[in-house]
């Protein structure tokens, strides 16, 4: 462990001070062409090494030093006892970062790291800075002093960084004294250059490094631990794996949702913490899988991406069933992952497959319907038959001829029922209105399309496709 840190805190203030007094100009008189020009005055650090000074002079006596010029140097750095505050105070900040894409060099609209930043009370110091103004005549000196002096009234803000979390970056620099001339009486002819010295005071803070931690604030609780009826959590049923008293807390810092459709997983971002009572969530926007994966961390080495194409897995949690598949980045669309589902992890059918999903109200004649074989099954989207169709004539067929046979009971089914041909007549094989069925979860495969459907909450839907909200899916890197 290195017992070391250095962040150039004084250096950065000095850099900003030179920036502050840079780009001043003086106006020269008219030359032989009648042109009056402005001359920019260079500013640099005065306490240079002799070697660098010689290099800048091209190691030649014949090189001419340029005047006017301004140089600055630190004349004092002292501990400022008057500004001492509690030395053991630690300030904590909770920060949400935007995700950063190093490839594009820009921030995305996704949430990145959540950080807790602990800052130790910095130590107060005061820097005294001298600014030497080198001139060869009085007019130059007054031009510069008038311009520089007009901006310090008496102080000017100065920042060493624009980092939001750096509480020591902002300070003020105050002009405290001016020594107008370096010349003394008697004035000899030795040096045509005169130096005016402006003295500045700059209070600063020297900071130790901060502690940066993963944020420990709980942002969202999906379900409460305790039963609302107040049952004793010490009861044997307090079992994290299946108890009604205890459920899992899911911490979802990234609020990423995905939609499983076909063989792709599309990423959506929900910035809201709100989840409505009906389970719905506010409108979301598409997200970038690269950035989302990066929020899980990075590997060291050449390939730093946690997602290994064809190896990494996404697991979908669906009514107690875990659907597993390997994933790979989509070659074009960054919002998509190609999902190669492991068929063994799909839910098992709870009833025989159906031959098709049909709409009885909009049906074309089909041999499967007109001459069905034993066990032909359809999931219907609209009702068939009605008690009003029953008449007393046994020689006629009640209801629609296509669904009924002479001498057989009329087929009466409602939407979402599954009907089946038993060799003699169509019957309701799955009654969607049955009280037991209403509460059950059923899986059935459509032989016509190969799609498996799930019956839940009185709705048929694709069994594993659809939206997986926060906490309903997970990413397994390898």
């Amino acid at each position, binding site marked *: 462990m290195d017992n070391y840190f250095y962040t150039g805190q004084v250096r*950065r203030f000095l*850099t*900003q001070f*030179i*920036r*502050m007094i840079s*780009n*001043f100009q*003086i106006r*020269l*008189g008219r*030359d032989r062409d009648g042109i009056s020009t402005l*001359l*920019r005055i*260079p500013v*640099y650090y*005065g306490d*240079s090494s002799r070697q660098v*000074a*010689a290099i*800048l*002079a*091209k190691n*030649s*006596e*014949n*090189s*001419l*030093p*340029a*005047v006017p*010029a301004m*140089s600055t140097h630190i004349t004092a750095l002292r501990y400022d006892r008057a500004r001492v505050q509690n030395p053991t105070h630690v300030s904590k900040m909770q920060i949400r970062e*935007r995700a*950063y894409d190093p490839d594009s060099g820009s921030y*995305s*609209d996704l*949430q990145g790291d959540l950080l807790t930043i602990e800052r130790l009370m910095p130590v107060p110091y005061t820097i005294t800075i001298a600014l030497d103004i080198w001139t*060869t*005549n*009085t*007019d*130059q000196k007054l031009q510069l002093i008038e311009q520089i002096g007009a*901006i310090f009234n008496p102080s000017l*803000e100065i*920042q*060493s*960084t*624009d*980092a*939001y979390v750096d509480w020591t970056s902002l300070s003020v620099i105050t002009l405290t004294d001016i020594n107008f001339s370096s010349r003394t009486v008697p004035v000899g*002819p*030795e*040096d*045509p*250059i005169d130096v005016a010295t402006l003295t500045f005071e700059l209070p600063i803070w020297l900071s130790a490094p901060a502690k940066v931690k993963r944020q420990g604030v709980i942002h969202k609780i999906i379900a409460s631990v305790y039963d609302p009826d107040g049952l004793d959590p010490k009861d044997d049923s307090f079992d994290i794996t299946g108890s009604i008293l205890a459920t899992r807390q899911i911490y979802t810092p990234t609020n990423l949702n995905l939609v499983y459709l076909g063989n792709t997983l599309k990423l959506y971002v929900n*910035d*809201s*913490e709100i989840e409505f009572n009906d389970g719905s969530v506010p*409108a979301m926007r598409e997200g970038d899988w690269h950035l989302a994966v990066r929020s899980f961390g990075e590997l060291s080495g050449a390939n730093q991406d946690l997602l290994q194409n064809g190896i990494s897995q996404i697991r979908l949690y669906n009514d107690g069933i875990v659907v597993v598949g390997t994933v790979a980045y989509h070659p074009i669309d960054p919002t998509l992952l190609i999902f190669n589902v492991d068929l063994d992890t799909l839910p098992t059918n709870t009833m025989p497959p159906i031959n098709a999903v049909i709409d009885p109200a909009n049906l074309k004649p089909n041999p499967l319907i007109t001459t069905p074989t034993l066990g032909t099954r359809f999931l219907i989207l609209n009702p068939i038959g009605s008690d009003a169709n029953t008449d007393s004539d046994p020689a006629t067929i009640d209801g629609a001829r296509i669904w009924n046979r002479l001498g057989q009971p009329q087929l009466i089914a409602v939407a979402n029922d599954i009907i089946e041909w038993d060799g003699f007549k169509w019957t309701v094989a799955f009654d969607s209105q049955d009280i037991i069925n209403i509460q059950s979860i059923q899986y059935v495969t459509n032989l016509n399309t190969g799609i498996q459907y799930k019956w839940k909450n009185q709705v048929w839907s694709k069994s594993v496709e659809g939206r997986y909200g926060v906490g309903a899916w997970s990413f397994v890197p390898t």
Partner: protein
Amino acid sequence: MARLSLWKEGKHTNDYRFFDRRISEFMSISGTGVLLHKYLGPMPQTQGQPDQPANTNTSELNIQDLLFLENRDRKYEPDVYRLRGVYQVTDNSFDLSQFGLFLQTGTLFITFHINDMVGQLGRKIMNGDVLELEHLLDYHTLDPDLPAALKRFFVATDCTRASEGYGPSWWPHLWRVKISPLVDSQEYKDIINKIAISDDDNRPIRDIISSYNSYIQVNDAIIEQAEQDVPASGYDLTPIYHRSGDTDTPDFAVNSYMGSSVGAPNGANVVQGISFPQNPEIGDYCLRVDYLPNRLFRYNGTRWMAIEDKVRTNLTNAAEDNRTLRNTFINNDRVFTDVRGREQPEKQNLNDILKPRAD
């Protein structure tokens, strides 16, 4: 028999002339070549004032600034006078005794034959004349890419009769000139800005002999680093993720002293303009650039709400995007039209504002 005397009642005798020729010959034989840039007087200035006369004639007798008693913009003879001078070569050193400027301490005393000097120049060498010692040409600077050897310039800072230059007839024959190393300053720009580097390179010699460009590059590098450290005043909230309650486009800004994001919070799309867009949707952002500072608005379904002001600004002096209060007064190129329809600059010195102007 008359008493012997080399002093003849103030007359230049043959004895004087004999000694003067011998001394001139000595200077010619043993002296080193000196190229002299003759000072002609301050540059004529078009707008004269009582204490700073225009000096439309060129004369060494003119004074540019009668208050400070200094000649800043000096005019030099384009032609160079070739003289012979003698001096004692000494060892010089560079001085960093006061931080900031790498100066040479060496001051030389060089003597010239008075009559030869006056015969060529028309006057004696005076303060401000610039001398180039030909034998100090530097062929071996640190920069091998320099297109020419560096010349050695001095400026006369004190001129008197040399004590060793008095002849037996008590008449002076030598002019002692105290010379100091030249600096690249306003006073000598008529020389170093007018001499070409070489016959093949018409750039002024200042480009290679002065350290000005090197120090400007140093200054620019420091400014660039400072702009990287603090691109703009205040705090950059761009890396901060704005957590919003129920919308993709937050309706608030992170509370910070002079802080703002680049664009809209979380990098959301923002429309810039001098008016609000038609048919906005809830959550749309608009940056009104006709506000100073620019103001970010968000449409909440019924009206545009102010979210934040873009108060951050470049702090580098004279930068185009420096919008500090001071800069609006200093770097102000704006004009206004007065009651007579004439355009007047907004930026005017306080002491000049109410002075009469020509129609």
